[in-house]
């Protein structure tokens, strides 16, 4: 494959270029209720060419090899137009030029297993909620995405890497009259099919939560002290803080850039946040990003102080900071953008019981349901929670949506647990979808959070 890419590269008259070719295979099995509604296995492929010409960096994605010449002409035109109209010339930070073929070790390569086996496992998990009265429906599916990536650059890089992601996830919907409640279920990862087996308990637990939610009370709107579980705190870390560690998001936003200066005290002194795509056996694992840069663990917050951020080669130059291999594309349809790999709050020493005791009165909020940020402000939902009175768990509550100011909330994190967990299902939609976006945290206690209620 490298030879084919070099044959395209030979025709590119630029100061720098890189070409990525990907073959992406996708197997999808979906159940809606009892009914199997999809079973497909397909592969697609395509090219992405990036060029740097006269200080303008542009990209083009195309499907067929025969389109390469047309693509080269168009992308060079785009690069010249950017160079002409932009006052800042793009300079890519120097990195070590790598030549490697990297294939991660998998515990049971799903590509070698039969579709029947995947179908039966998905069916078994899907039947767990459906056996129960008051479960109205399910939407549960198996997804397997494998990407074979080939990357060359005019600097001489030649990298091939495989990324294989598997998961079984979806929703369970319960219903009582007009009241409808939904919970998310999901297991998965990037280290093989093995981790999907023997997970019946997860589906049983979530079924029970879906039923209990029919009897839960809506949470009243107001300001509360709360404990977030690992999933909630992980999403908070990703949404509220993580995105603004991505250099491209703040690069051209002068006021945000001012706030996110290195050495700024952004959080309480107990707070440490890191992004590390190199931890093996977790969803966000990769060795090289889509600029051919080797991924590095990056400390973002140390004792509440901002000490690092996530970079592409372009933004590393702009900020005068080291590149760390965080420029990643969804697939062959896109040029890479800066992404988190595996972002998490580092654990402290407290147990959940100690956190509850410290909380006294408030809410214990469990399992994320999507979030979004606009910079200073963020909003994200939870699947359920419990009233906490004098440190003891009370009745279940539903309809929990949290909103807050990033900087105030980081300062209001007052206690951190010892029980770090990383998520198994990813899905960050910053322009492109990243199904391997991984986050995590131990339990954390936050003071004075706005809850919207309904």
């Amino acid at each position, binding site marked *: 494959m490298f030879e084919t890419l070099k044959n395209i590269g030979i025709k590119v008259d630029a100061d720098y270029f890189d070409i990525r070719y990907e073959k992406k295979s996708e197997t999808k099995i979906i159940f809606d209720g009892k009914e199997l509604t999809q079973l497909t296995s397909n592969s697609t492929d395509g090219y992405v060419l990036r060029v740097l010409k006269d200080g303008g960096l542009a990209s083009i994605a195309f499907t067929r090899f025969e389109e390469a010449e047309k693509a080269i002409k168009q992308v060079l035109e785009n690069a010249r*137009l*950017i160079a002409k109209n932009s006052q800042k010339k793009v300079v890519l930070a120097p990195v070590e030029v790598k030549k490697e073929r990297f294939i991660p070790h998998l515990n049971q390569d799903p590509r070698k297993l039969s*579709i029947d086996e995947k179908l039966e496992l998905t069916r078994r998990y899907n039947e767990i909620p459906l056996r129960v009265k008051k479960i109205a429906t399910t939407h549960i599916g198996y997804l397997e995405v494998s990407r074979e990536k080939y990357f060359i650059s005019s600097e001489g890089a030649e990298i091939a890497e495989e990324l294989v992601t598997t998961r079984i996830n979806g929703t369970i919907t319960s219903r009582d009259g007009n009241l409808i409640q939904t919970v998310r279920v999901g297991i998965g990862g990037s280290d093989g099919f093995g981790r999907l087996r023997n997970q019946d308990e997860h589906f049983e637990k979530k079924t029970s939560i879906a039923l209990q939610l029919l009897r839960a009370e809506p949470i009243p709107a107001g300001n509360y002290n709360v404990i977030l579980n690992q999933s909630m705190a992980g999403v908070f870390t990703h949404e509220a803080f993580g995105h603004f560690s991505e250099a491209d998001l703040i690069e051209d936003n002068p006021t945000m850039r001012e706030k996110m200066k290195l050495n700024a005290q952004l959080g309480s002194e107990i707070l440490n946040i890191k992004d590390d795509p190199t931890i093996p056996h977790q969803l966000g694992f990769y060795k090289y990003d889509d600029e051919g840069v080797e991924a590095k663990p990056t400390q973002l917050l140390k004792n509440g102080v901002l000490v690092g951020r996530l970079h592409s080669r372009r933004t590393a130059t702009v900020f005068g900071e080291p590149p760390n291999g965080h420029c990643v594309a969804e697939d062959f349809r896109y040029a890479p953008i800066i992404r988190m790999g595996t972002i998490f709050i580092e654990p402290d020493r407290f147990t959940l019981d100690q956190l509850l005791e410290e909380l006294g009165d408030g809410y214990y909020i469990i399992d994320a349901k999507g979030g*979004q940020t606009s910079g200073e402000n963020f*909003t994200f939902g939870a699947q359920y929670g419990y009233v906490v009175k004098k440190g003891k768990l009370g009745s279940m509550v539903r309809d929990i949506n949290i909103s807050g100011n990033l900087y105030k909330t980081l300062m209001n994190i007052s206690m951190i647990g010892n029980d770090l967990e990383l998520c198994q299902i990813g899905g960050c939609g910053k322009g492109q979808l990243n199904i391997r976006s991984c986050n995590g945290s131990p339990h954390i206690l936050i003071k004075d959070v706005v809850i919207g209620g309904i």
Partner: protein
Amino acid sequence: MDKLIKLAEKCCEKVEVYSLDEHLNRINFENGRLKEIETSIQSGVALRIIKDNKLGFAYTKNLQDREGLIENALNSLKGGVQAEFDFPETKNLPELKSYDESIEELSNETVVKECERVVKKISERSKGQVNITAIIDYFKIRILNSSGTDVATRISNYYLRTSLLFPNSYASIERILQDRKFVHTPDDYIDYIVDTYNRSSKEVSPPGGRMKVLFLPETLYVLLWRIAYATSAESIYRNASPAVNKIGKKIFHEDFTLINDPLNEDFGPARAFDDEATPTQMLPIIENGVLKNFYYDLNYAQKMNKKSSGNGFKTGRWESEKIAIKPGPALEHLFITPGKASFSEILSSIDQGIIVAGALGAHSGNIPNGDFSIGLAPGLYVKDGRIVGRLKDAMVAGNIYEVLQNVIAVENRVYPGMVGYFPAILFDNVNVASR
């Protein structure tokens, strides 16, 4: 494609071939300066086959190996996905204006110049940061099936979204411009953004509680998402919608009328057929508050003994690769009937209230139940008929089956929003949580 369908017909009773060729340029301005130009040239073919009432589905980006594609579709039959529907015989479709050939000649340079002009006009009157995304997109869809259908359409789309950002955030005042061809950005588009922004420059912290809330065309999708979920044939079939058995019943305020009209050439890319080659139609979803119709694709129509309403589209939840998605019921051409009051008249009628100018977390509430609970990014605070500032740390929450009963006013103009054209709508008695 013609060869592919002939080959597939040899082994299957029913066959459908869908092809898409798309060319897309995306131009991004950040902080008033050109930052990125991305081009994407994509094509692909999707194949659906039905054999013994079972469905097979496969797709490819490169139609080099026809046998391989058919083999893939045959393999997917093994799972036993039930499909008892027929592919439609579609002929004599109306000619719609959905494509303007000038789009293929439109240079990125022309659009960059236009973006620079918009930035300059805004910056003359405002200190805020200007971000613009411009898209030049054109594509061709062709569908052939074993019932003898061979239909094709071309769509062109010019899109310009301008955002004027508040400090320390991505919260902004924004407006969308959309046409079949390049158009100059009108002055009133720029005036709206600048005037609204300048009036909201002060940060305020009013008390929360129940009050009037105005959703803008750009944020109404929060409510419409829940209506679209509730009225989809899929949700009805799965008994997961509060709208089951409510056809003909008045569920919302009488001033609220929502239709889906792919045939209207003036509002978004018109389509004479959906992604299954079923002819489209003007379909009222809510008429004067009364629930009129659910919307169907071929699959759910057959299961529910109905006819497809021409709403089978390849629309995924998060995915954008149309080729890889099976068609399902979708509303892609929504339109809310405008009311009588102008925007300024509506504004001056508000004694105390919030304007939802940007919403965070529309996807995270209990959508099946109709609940929403969104962060405001930003929310504008209105007192005695005037915008007096913007709120931070505030949320607006409710349930569409309550909130949409409390319509006070519907604006007399529509603007492009997410999958449709909408006016601003003012609601009474909505819950606002504030710090």
